[in-house]
């Protein structure tokens, strides 16, 4: 239909479907579009211009290829009402008219073009006819030219051959002339110092002379040449030996000498010897920098000098050597490697000496930078001379230095810890401010903990420089693996924590004899410190380390729990030791007070003895001290008013008093029976039992030790009546004040009961004091 002309190309109308196989493509594209649209959630409505694929074979499609007017009409008539039929008819008529007018316009517009095209074609026909004639003429002319040229070359053939021959002779003559002139040229070159030129001439002539040496004239030339060449070689050698000029010139000399056919072996030896001389000079200057009394430049400068002087020299030598003596094969390479190895080891020795000087110093960043330079510099010769193992050796040195640094830091940390301890000691020993404690223990503890932590962090940070990305050796396997895990984590951090625990423990092991050098407060503080480490600090530090040094090594590391257990054990031992020391102090007081007094001839007690008040005061002080660092802890449930408890032992001691005078063999059964029965119902008291981490447990331990001492001392004495009463008073006083410190007050009662009972047994005249009187005295005291 006409519609095909009006809307050419695919996609011009919704219904049109171009013919042939192309029809498939847009169809497919549309389908794809449809899927995309579906995907992007566009409704079909928005694509209203493209109603979903009408069947291209539909015979009722007006624009379709298979349009069948009969079917269409039939369909219209059948389906549409009259009004619509009329509408479609008018519509159809209008469309047909529009198409007709469009066709007309097209024809008018293109009419002129058709005419001019016809003219052009006609003109072209004429032109072609002219050209054909000219081409024919050209062909005949060419044939004539070919004929002439053939004739000429035939005539010249003979002469050409002769010229060629003459040219050959000429060249030969020039060569001969060169040969004859060679000696003088060589001499001139040598005189002028143009050794390169001379060697080139000599090289060119040598083969010829060699070939024709049986001819006497050539022999003469050859001899001359050899003399000159020898002189040349000599001069070259001379220059080579003088050696003052740098490596490149030397290399040139050697190259020339080689070209002169000097023995390579010998040259190579000599070359190396010269290079050695120069490099040794470099080394000497480096050594001078080391100096016995250094105004020595810092490490960085030193390694810079080494790098630019020695290492680059070595590089040049190696490069030149490899270039010159490549023909020498593996033997030559081996020689060079040995050379480099020897000098390299001397260089390394110097570097190590210098680094050793640095070992004590604090600035890690400078050192790391110096090492970085050193290592980086050596990579070039390392690549050149893989066999000499320079890069490996350099890495080794760096590793060693890193290890030493770790050791140095560990020592630093230990020293810092000891320093902290000394500070604490001084703070503790410093004369107290009137009345108040000087610096609070808690404050001291915080100071110590924070200062240690900051030291650890500083060490970690400075050690971390070794693994920084921009440092050339940080990607070596050692620095990625072992350095992080074994070196830093195990060696430095774990090592430090362990040594800290050990140092702390050594305070327990040091015999606490004669008062012990360690102030008890320090023990307490260390114990708390270790406990804090156990609960938080260790895991914090290790996490920090693991984060900073991404440990990739698979080698086993100490788990946090082990360290924590060690720290806890240390804390426990320290606290136990603290209890022992403090217990000992009070024990000694009690022991002296019992041992030095004459209990037989003492007067009737009026007061509590001063030493008991002192004991209570000291215990209170200890309570305060421990309270600063440790939590309260748990007590057993108490009776409503413990202080008012009367001594149960009074009754028993009174009974004993009744039995005691009858010293008959059968009597002791009763007295002993009583105390034994009593003991049956009381638990055994472990005097030096392990302590828990709280105040009550600590105080309980100290009081147990003190009271047990009192008990044992009382048993060694003999008491008069008033002596016994004094013990009674003292014990009651202690009971009044000590119960509040302990976990189980029953314990204090038991021990004090024992003391009074023992005193009663040790008294030939056991008349106890009335409890009311005892109470009055105690309350008054």
């Amino acid at each position: 239909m006409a519609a095909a002309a009006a809307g050419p190309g695919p996609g011009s109308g919704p219904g049109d479907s171009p013919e042939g196989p192309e029809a498939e493509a847009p169809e497919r594209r549309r389908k794809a579009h449809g899927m995309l649209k579906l995907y992007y959630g566009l409704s079909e409505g928005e694509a209203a211009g493209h109603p979903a694929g009408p069947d291209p074979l539909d015979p009722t499609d007006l624009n379709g290829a298979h349009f069948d007017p009969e079917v269409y009409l039939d369909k219209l008539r059948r389906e549409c009402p009259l009004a619509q039929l009329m509408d479609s008819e008018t519509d159809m008529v209008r469309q047909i008219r529009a198409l007709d007018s469009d066709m007309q316009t097209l024809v008018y517009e293109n009419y002129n073009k058709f005419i001019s095209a016809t003219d052009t074609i006609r003109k072209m026909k004429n032109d072609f006819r002219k050209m054909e004639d000219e081409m024919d003429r050209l062909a005949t002319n060419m044939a004539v030219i070919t004929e002439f040229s053939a004739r000429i070359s035939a005539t010249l053939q003979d002469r050409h051959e002769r010229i060629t021959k003459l040219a050959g002779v000429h060249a030969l003559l020039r060569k001969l002339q060169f040969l004859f002139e060679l000696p003088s040229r060589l001499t001139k070159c040598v005189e002028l110092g143009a050794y390169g030129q001379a060697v080139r001439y000599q090289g060119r002539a040598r083969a010829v002379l060699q070939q024709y040496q049986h001819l006497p004239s050539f022999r003469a030339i050859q001899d001359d040449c050899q003399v000159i060449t020898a002189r040349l070689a000599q001069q070259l050698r001379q220059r080579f030996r003088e050696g003052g000029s740098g490596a490149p010139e030397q290399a040139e000399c050697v190259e020339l000498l080689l070209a002169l056919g000097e023995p390579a072996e010998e040259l190579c030896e000599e070359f190396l010897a010269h290079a050695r001389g120069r490099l040794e000079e470099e080394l000497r200057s480096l050594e001078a920098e080391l100096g016995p009394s250094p105004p020595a430049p810092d490490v960085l400068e030193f390694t810079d000098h080494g790098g630019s002087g020695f290492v680059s020299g070595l590089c040049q030598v190696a490069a030149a050597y490899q270039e010159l003596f490549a023909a020498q094969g593996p033997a030559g390479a081996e020689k060079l490697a040995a050379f480099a190895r020897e000098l390299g080891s001397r260089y390394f020795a110097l570097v190590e000496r210098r680094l050793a000087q640095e070992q004590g110093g604090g600035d890690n960043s400078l050192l790391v930078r110096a090492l970085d330079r050193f290592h980086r510099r050596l990579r070039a010769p390392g690549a050149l001379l893989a066999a000499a193992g320079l890069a490996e050796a350099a890495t080794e040195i760096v590793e060693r230095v890193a290890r030493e640094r770790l050791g140095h830091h560990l020592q630093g940390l230990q020293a810092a810890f000891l320093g902290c301890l000394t500070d604490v000691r001084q703070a503790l020993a410093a004369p107290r401010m009137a009345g108040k404690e000087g610096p609070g223990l808690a404050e001291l503890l915080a100071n110590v903990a924070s200062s240690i932590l900051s030291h650890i962090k500083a060490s970690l940070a400075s050690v971390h420089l070794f693994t920084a990305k921009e440092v050339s050796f940080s990607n070596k396997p050692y620095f990625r693996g072992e350095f992080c895990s074994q070196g830093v984590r195990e060696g430095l951090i774990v090592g430090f924590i362990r040594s800290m625990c050990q140092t702390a423990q050594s305070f327990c092991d040091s015999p606490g004899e004669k008062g012990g050098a360690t102030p008890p407060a320090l023990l307490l503080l260390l114990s708390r410190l270790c406990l804090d480490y156990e609960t938080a600090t260790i895991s914090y530090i290790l996490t920090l380390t693991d984060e900073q040094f991404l440990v990739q090594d698979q080698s086993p590391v100490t788990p946090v729990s082990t360290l924590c257990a060690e720290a806890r054990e240390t804390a426990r031992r320290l606290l136990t030791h603290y209890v022992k020391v403090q217990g000992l102090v009070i024990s000694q007081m009690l022991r002296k007070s019992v041992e030095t007094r004459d209990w037989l001839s003492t007067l009737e007690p009026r007061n509590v003895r001063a030493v008991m008040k002192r004991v209570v005061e000291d215990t209170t002080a200890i309570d305060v001290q421990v309270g600063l660092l440790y939590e309260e802890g748990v007590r057993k449930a108490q009776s409503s008013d413990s202080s008012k408890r009367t001594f149960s032992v009074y009754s028993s001691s009174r009974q004993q008093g009744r039995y005691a005078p009858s010293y008959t063999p059968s009597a002791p059964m009763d007295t002993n029976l009583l105390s034994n029965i009593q003991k049956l119902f009381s638990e055994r008291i472990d005097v030096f039992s392990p302590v828990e981490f709280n105040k009550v447990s600590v105080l309980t331990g100290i009081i147990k030790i003190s009271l047990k001492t009192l008990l044992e001392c009382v048993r060694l004495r003999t008491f008069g009546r008033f002596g016994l009463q004094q013990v009674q008073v003292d014990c009651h006083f202690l009971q009044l004040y000590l119960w509040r410190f302990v976990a189980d007050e029953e314990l204090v009662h038991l021990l004090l009961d024992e003391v009074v009972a023992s005193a009663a047994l040790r008294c030939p005249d056991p008349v106890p004091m009335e409890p009311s009187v005892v109470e009055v005295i105690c309350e008054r005291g």
Partner: protein
Amino acid sequence: MEDDAPVIYGLEFQIHIIDFDDENNIISKNVLLHQVGEIWHISASPADRGVLATCYNRTADSKVLTCAAVWRMPAELEPGGHESPEDAASPAHALELLCHLDHAARGSTACVVWEPAGPGGRVVSLADNHVLLWDLQESGSRAALASSASLEGKGQLKFTTGRWSPHHNCTQVATANDTAVRGWDTRTMSQIYCIENAHGQLVRDLDFNPNKQYYLASCGDDCRVKFWDTRNVSEPVKTLEEHSHWVWSVRYNHSHDQLVLTGSSDSRVVLSNMVSISSEPFGHLADDDDLSDQEERRPEEKSQEPPQDSVIATYEEHEDSVYAVDWSSADPWLFASLSYDGRLVINRVPRALKYHILL
């Protein structure tokens, strides 16, 4: 079999001789009266089993003075002398006083030790800060002061205990005062060694290794037992810390010196096996087998691995502080301990260990 270690028994001022019949497991006792005062230390003469020395308190003019005397038991009660009929009601016998070991100006006697070998005529007593060597003459009825030495120093120095070494021809006595242990040569009465600060606190008891002449055990208020080589006194050879309170007594077994007995005021008695510092540290060596053909009497030990020092047993029969422990002099596998409440406990070394040592 009997146990002839006489023991103090409480306030009654009696000496009880306790016979232990091992075969029948029967204990019988005889009571001797000690009228002069309460006994603080007792030691039997190794030469004459009827003779013993005591240190006792005498209260006079409201002063307590500790004196020492040598006594003889009534002949019929001498241990092993005869079988006295089991009669609990038999009247107590009195001791026969041989002599006093007193010296007017010497103060309280803490301890009397007999010369461990020889005729039994020599006794050392420790009074305050003096070491007094007595010769007992006329079968003990007269004591003459042979020589003496005294400890000088600041403060009130007081000996607490002493032991007479069975080695070196019985010429050495060790004493303890406060935290120090000192050795004396009885020939010149001069000090031969001194272990300052042997213990953190008071030293309570000493004992010599019966088989190794330079080895000495000490115990004290720091709850430790230490073993010393008297040739090098800067460091103890070994330290035990098994007790939780003062250790009052330490004793080597008389024949198997790896067995060490300690008693403490934590009411425990601990039997330790100190193999590493005993005279038989590794049992018998292989080449001893040849010798054993000649000396068949000697029991063989065939322990494969070197034995370790260890605590063999802890005895907790006592309810109160244990103040004395000792081995039976007749049966090396038997020992007794005595506590404050007057309980005497007799124990045997565990059978397994006994066979281990013997076989």
